[in-house]
């Protein structure tokens, strides 16, 4: 499903869908069962009352409306980060730069709202500038790749460090109050806080609908626009894109910059919606968590809200278990690792069958190189050299 996933004009045939869902359901059940066993073992090793800890882990986000709000807020941040990553992955580029772009977006948004006079709606200015800054910061590796051929894994990774240090530097120099003992700005003016909606007891930040909107926007861009189509084609095959008159370079830098834009928005949303100020460590690895979320959905933007909410549930459940049962934080980290492995293991059954002596399905190993009939013919090896 990997490669053919890139551009599907219409949904897959319903029969295949149903089968996939059924198979997926079975696997999910097995995964969940396995995960619970692992969780319990980990908790038994570390918590005084493993059952209670497990309970608060699994039901934590629902134990109070405050916690539910917390879960949804965290999920919204994950969603934005995931959408940024899916954007660039769907365009066939590989960026690890969301983390840095989030910091830059937050910085721009924060610096703006800290310096602007307070007026209703000033938060929109912050969001806009955050997005713009993210766009520009994503443009850097994009242009480097499009015009310099620079490997984007290296450049985005390096830019993360530059962003991290730059963020600290600017807070240190310009934004932290004189009395501060730690690089952190003042709190923003409440007008710069992301508004939230109250539904009964539950407070839902604007971040959530906003993040869902972003996911839909990415989906629309990729599936329904010419630009998105071009990006997908450039990502799938540069020779093809060239031979059909597409603007390959523009596609490369634009997709990376747009991903930066969303990540920048994520940064602005985190600053205005969660921390309400700039503080060193603000991104807290959420850029990398975004990679997880995006990959869990195979880069399908419309599934990202689901994946983010599910992943956010575990994270928040873990936080609450930590708060209420005092299990070490690292149990949660370790658990996340196990869960991701369990969820992404795709072919346990096939493997077991293979072990039992049957022939394995022809496809194995990583995504490349494609099945034998697709291997680039000799002529492409020639031109490709």
């Amino acid at each position: 499903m990997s490669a053919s996933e890139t551009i599907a004009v219409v949904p897959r045939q319903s029969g295949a869908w149903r089968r996939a869902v059924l198979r997926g359901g079975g696997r999910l059940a097995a995964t969940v069962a396995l995960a619970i066993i692992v969780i319990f073992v980990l908790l038994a090793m570390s918590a005084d009352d493993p059952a209670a800890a497990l309970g608060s882990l699994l039901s934590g986000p629902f134990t109070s409306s405050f916690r539910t709000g917390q879960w949804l807020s965290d999920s919204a941040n994950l969603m934005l980060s995931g959408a940024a990553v899916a954007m660039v992955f769907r365009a066939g580029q590989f960026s690890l730069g969301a983390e840095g772009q989030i910091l830059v977006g937050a910085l721009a948004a924060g610096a703006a709202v800290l310096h602007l006079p307070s007026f209703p709606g000033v938060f929109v200015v912050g969001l806009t500038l955050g997005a713009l800054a993210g766009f520009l910061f994503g443009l850097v590796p994009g242009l480097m790749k499009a015009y310099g051929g620079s490997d984007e894994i290296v450049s985005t990774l390096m830019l993360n460090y530059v962003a991290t240090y730059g963020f600290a530097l600017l807070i240190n120099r310009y934004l932290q109050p004189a009395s501060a003992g730690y690089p952190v700005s003042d709190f923003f003016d409440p007008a710069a806080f992301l508004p939230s909606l109250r539904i009964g007891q539950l407070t839902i930040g604007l971040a959530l609908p906003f993040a869902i909107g972003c996911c839909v926007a990415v989906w629309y861009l990729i599936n329904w626009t010419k630009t998105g189509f071009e990006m997908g084609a450039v990502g799938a095959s540069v020779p093809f894109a060239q031979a059909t008159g597409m603007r390959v370079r523009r596609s490369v830098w634009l997709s990376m910059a747009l991903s930066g834009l969303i990540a920048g928005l994520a940064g602005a949303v985190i600053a205005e919606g969660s921390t309400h100020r700039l503080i060193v460590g603000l991104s807290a690895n959420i850029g990398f968590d975004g990679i997880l979320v995006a990959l869990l959905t195979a880069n399908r933007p419309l599934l990202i809200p689901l994946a983010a909410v599910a992943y956010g549930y575990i994270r928040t459940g873990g936080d609450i278990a930590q708060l209420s049962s005092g299990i070490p934080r690292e149990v949660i980290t370790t658990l996340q690792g196990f869960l991701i492995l369990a969820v992404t293991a795709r072919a346990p059954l096939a493997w077991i069958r293979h072990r039992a002596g049957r022939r394995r399905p022809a496809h194995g190993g990583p995504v490349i190189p494609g099945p034998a009939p697709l291997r680039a013919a000799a002529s492409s090896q020639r031109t490709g050299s």
Partner: protein
Amino acid sequence: SNGSADGGDPGKPAVALFIPGQLGDGGFFDNSQTGVKEAGVRLGLKVRTVETGPDPSKWAPALNDVAGGDDQVIIVGTYGMKQIVEQAAQAHPEKSFVLYDVESTPAECGCHNIYSILYRYSESGFLAGALAGLLHKAGGVERIGSGNTVGVIGGQDIPVIQDYINGFKAGVAQTNPSLKVLSGYAGSFADPVKGQNLAAQMISDGADVLFTAAGGTDKGVIQAAAEHDVWAIGNSLTQADDPMVNGKTAVLTSAVTSVDTSLADAVEKAAAGTLPLGTTVRFGAKQKTNYVAQSQPYLKYVPEPVRGEIEKITTEMADGRYDSVLDR
């Protein structure tokens, strides 16, 4: 470490230590946990630690969660938590908050249930600097060469650590103005390799005493000191108690800022119901929480007159004699 929520005396207040970061930083947070736990055990209080991790977006919600729980005394540290604690304090006037490492003024906050603790990190730095200066002056001290350079290494480049470093420089200037002071930040509290690099570089540039205030990064500094036969001055009692690297004594002593003592004191007062809410105490030499540890190597290698001089400086410091050079 975590979750020792048991063994509380029902009549006494339950205490929560809220860590906006993670334990195991080898310094500040670990230190605060030591103090709170020690007092809790001593007094038979129910004490628990809540560790939220380094993600700042989690801090406010987590503290709200804790404040809404059963703990009567909530202990929170670091500058970044100030407004968050103030908001929680407003929302939960029935709870007592201990805010350490930053000051909350009731006038600004509009709340009267916060007891603030400040630390004079620069005093510890000053003492370490004075010791370094005096060691050079004394002459004939083991591992102290004829060079005239000492060094100081910080973790992240943040104001708290800048205090240590500025204090160190002031201490050197006070006792031995001709000494040259090298300084550097590792950029992290958990990168001993960087610490080792910085220390090795300073040593190769002639430094023979290194003061370190860098959390987990300290390990690398101490390691380099051991390797190249110079002295490290640490910042915690643990380092002073366990001064060896690979069988070789490397940590001469520690210039301690004892967060644990201040917090143990706060817990004690809270248990007794005498927590001076609405006030701020600045802990330092005066409260005997900033001092040079009387460790084995200190007693063995530091000449008696130098130790006497340090004793004297500590006393003078408690009397406010150096405030003019120390206060930011």
